[in-house]
């Protein structure tokens, strides 16, 4: 045999270290300023984080895509923010209330709120995200039904609420209730390989962020820009929609939106972006 075991050994070492033999395309070194607010797109990772630096997915996108997000007049996601504002102020349901009836001006009352979700829901004894918090209000206070997952209004309202925290750093309080144990479950899932292709979240977004899968420049898979305006779909895409899309792409059965698994994953993945600015609505490819 021509090839010695030493070569096989070298191959193993290369794979183990995840060192590509080809050049890695680094994320850009550029500043993101939206409406005169400078976004934190790179920051030191929190304690216990596997990476040294957390980075916004914005740094991994093409120049045109980055510019689209930086200009609020061009960002297609801002149309959904406007729709969300209309829904916020619209009276709906038997109680004759709008969101604004109780929460007044979202620019004041919702500022910073989206940066701290998911939170612990003591009633449901599980984490609650913005979508589920809206549903809780609709059912308990407005006499309405919960939104169907990914209903256009759900996405618009979530986008609007998150947008009130534009520029605020993501920060979760894991000491609330049992949030820490959900973080633990989320971490477990992040590293669990699924599907026929046998990929975990970490396979692409930790071990290979910065590399390309075909035309897709792999980011760290951060949640700080969700819901995002995704050019591929020409629509707003919710975090749980993207979770499901990624899991489906591993050729696995997909968990339901807002299921225990995906809520745990939302807690953990959001934490991985601690310190990044909320960028909603971000623009991605």
């Amino acid at each position, binding site marked *: *045999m*021509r*090839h010695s*075991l030493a*070569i*096989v050994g070298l*191959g*193993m070492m*290369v*794979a*183990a270290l*995840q060192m*590509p*033999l*080809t*050049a*890695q*395309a680094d994320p850009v070194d550029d500043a993101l300023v939206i409406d005169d607010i400078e976004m934190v797109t790179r920051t030191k990772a929190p304690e216990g984080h596997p990476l040294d630096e957390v980075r916004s997915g914005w740094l991994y996108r093409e120049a045109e895509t980055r510019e689209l997000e930086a200009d609020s007049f061009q960002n297609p996601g801002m149309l959904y923010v406007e729709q969300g504002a209309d829904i916020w102020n619209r009276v709906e349901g038997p109680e004759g209330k709008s969101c604004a009836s109780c929460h007044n001006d979202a620019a004041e009352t919702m500022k910073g709120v989206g940066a701290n979700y998911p939170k612990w829901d003591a009633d449901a004894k599980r984490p609650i995200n913005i979508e589920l918090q809206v549903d809780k209000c609709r059912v308990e206070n407005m006499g309405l039904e919960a939104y169907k997952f990914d209903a256009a209004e759900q996405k618009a309202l979530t986008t609007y609420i998150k947008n009130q925290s534009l520029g605020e750093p993501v920060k979760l309080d894991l000491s609330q209730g049992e949030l820490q144990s959900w973080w633990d479950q989320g971490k477990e899932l992040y590293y*669990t*390989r*699924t*599907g*026929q*292709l*046998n*990929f*975990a979240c970490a*396979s*692409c977004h930790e*071990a*290979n962020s910065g*590399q*390309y*899968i*075909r*035309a897709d420049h*792999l980011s760290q898979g951060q949640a700080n820009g969700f819901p995002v305006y995704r050019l591929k779909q020409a629509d707003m895409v919710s975090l749980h929609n993207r979770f499901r899309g990624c899991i*489906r792409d*591993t*050729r*696995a*059965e997909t968990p339901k939106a807002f299921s225990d698994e995906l809520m745990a994953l939302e807690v953990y993945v959001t934490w991985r972006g601690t310190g990044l600015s909320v960028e909603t609505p971000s623009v991605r490819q």
Partner: protein
Amino acid sequence: MIKVTRLLCAAFVMHAGAAFADETAPDKVMFEDFAVQASLSGQAGDPTEGAKVFKDRGLGNCLACHENAGMKGDLFHGTVGPAVDGVAERWEPAQLRAIVSDAKQVFGEETVMPGFYSLKVGKNVAKDLVGKTILSAQQVEDVVAYLATLKE
């Protein structure tokens, strides 16, 4: 016509879960010294078919992760794995067969490369894919035959 017959046979095997007399079942592939000596299908591979499997996004989709100077006409080569240029200078066909069939047997559990002829897969495999391999035995042979042509 021969090619069509072979494709039909491969399709039959995948759906029926039965095996050709000469075909090795995914759980019976013999890895020895990071190599698999025998053809998985019992047949020789066809490098022309292998090139198609290599780039087809629904089959091998190898280009998603590996650059290939021989396929410059196709846009967007991935960089997750090493480039395959000159791969035949670095590995014997039997080693390439092992890597394509189940890379974890060669590089260890940490590699992200899927096992294209392996049933050792991730959790919650999509219902319609349970018990199925990504590629058929013959498709692996075709890819191996193609890779064996990549000399610098």
